């Protein structure tokens, strides 16, 4: 006879009132199978009623993300990852890459307005004359891919300071000439030292594929928050949604 190691095993064993019933077993097993098949309602977007719970979770997550947020946290690209250069995906919501038409719309300028002491209208040359920052940073797409690029531009915080953006402007909306595309940010993220109004990528002026003449870029926000084909910064007391945020992606979109 083999040694029986069941004995002495500290297992809690206490009799239930009812003895075992095979029918009960098959009933519970059957119930489980039904539950399983409901769960396996594959490729589904889940029950409708969950929407409120998901919205609640998004709000709580945003609160946590904003509490975690620090200007000293810097997005840096690992040295082992090469710049994407031409492999950097190019996205716009228009049918073709939007190109600013000087003849139709006049010379391109970026407007800074809303809750500011001095509304600004800056030309590309005005931007070039401001303090420029060059940073090699990762870009995080909501889809999960990353690309590394070297962006050159003016800090959003410099522009806010130049325009005298007011303290009660808790939000800023970045609008574009790409078929109404815009995204609004919390002011805190916009003041991050890596949040730039970018005019050059990898040492060359932005091309229409990458948001020319100027775009927003900051590694602290997911790609869709970084408006390209920029036309306007509006400082606001309230958030103003955004192109993808209004379609159901998280408004905060922070990294």
């Amino acid at each position, binding site marked *: 006879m083999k040694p029986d190691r069941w004995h002495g095993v500290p297992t809690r064993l206490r009799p239930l009132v009812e003895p075992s019933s095979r029918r009960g077993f098959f009933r*519970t097993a059957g119930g489980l199978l039904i539950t399983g098949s409901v769960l396996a309602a594959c490729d589904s977007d889940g029950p409708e009623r969950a929407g409120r719970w998901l919205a609640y979770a998004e709000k709580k997550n945003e609160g946590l993300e904003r509490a975690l947020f620090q200007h000293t946290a810097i997005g*840096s690209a690992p040295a082992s*990852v090469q710049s994407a250069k031409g492999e950097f995906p190019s996205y716009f919501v228009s049918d073709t890459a939007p190109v600013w038409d000087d003849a139709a719309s006049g010379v391109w300028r970026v407007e800074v307005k809303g809750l500011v002491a001095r509304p600004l209208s800056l030309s590309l040359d005005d931007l070039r004359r401001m303090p420029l920052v060059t940073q090699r940073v990762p870009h995080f797409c909501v889809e999960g891919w990353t690309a590394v690029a070297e962006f050159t531009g003016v800090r959003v915080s410099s522009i806010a300071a130049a325009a005298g953006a007011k303290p009660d402007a808790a939000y800023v909306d970045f609008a574009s000439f790409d078929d109404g595309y815009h995204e609004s940010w919390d002011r805190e993220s916009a003041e991050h030292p890596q949040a730039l109004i970018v005019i050059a990528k990898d040492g060359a002026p932005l091309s229409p594929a990458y948001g020319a003449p100027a775009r927003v870029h900051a590694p602290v926000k997911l790609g869709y928050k970084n408006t390209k084909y920029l036309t306007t910064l509006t400082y606001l007391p309230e958030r103003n949604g955004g192109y993808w945020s209004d379609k159901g*992606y998280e408004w905060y979109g922070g990294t």
Partner: protein
Amino acid sequence: MTSPDGAAMEAMSGTSSVPNGAAAGSVPEQHPAVVHRHHLIVRLTHWVNALALVVMIGSGLRIYNASPGFAPKGNSFCCWPWEGMAVPAWATFGGWLGGARHWHFAAMWVLVANGLLYLGFIWLHGEWRDLVPRRGFVRDSIEMVRFYMWVSREHPRQGKHNALQRGTYFLLPYVGAASVITGIAIWKPVQLGWLTALMGGYHWARWWHFMAMALLLVLSIGHVFMVFAVDPYSLRAMLTGGYNPAKSPEERNARPFVNLFGRPAPKEDA
């Protein structure tokens, strides 16, 4: 070999509906008592965990499908031969990328809170002792593998959970923790950039996250397979808490799909 078992069971359960002499009788009568195997908290956290894992893995795969692969743009990646290959839609949950992200970022709290409740409970209540490998783990595991591969005839006597189960149940919280930590590194790659850097960067963190998920999936599928193929009576234990020791795999000498119904184990000569 069977009578001491029954006596011990009744001694531990505190009550006996069978006279002591009956232990020498037919095998099914000697474990009349259905014993209480799983505490309510264990049962509750088990099923919440099952649901949370289904939602997390399904929505995670939907998120993965938005950009299937790990190489940063303009780079190659050493360790993934299926770059660009999406997971079949039927295995995904959330409907679209934004929906899957909402589910993923909501259910993650359920997974974490439930996991902490479970770990806290088994720690305070002592159940962890049944769920950690013990002395002789390797030998016991080999015994189990030999039995399942028909090398040895008799189901090894290893108690409530055999060595393979103990190994799995011990590993699961660690793999779960790894999936949570790698997930945080993907969620906040700048604000918690030190954590992301620890894993080799964002694309490596995604890879580790995927691998942790894959291991969880393999262990879970193995677990569910063994429940139905070897110990379907444990389903009841995980639902009502009740378990009939006379129908344990040890008593039935159960290998996958063999001896599923209660019957006496082959007698072995002393």
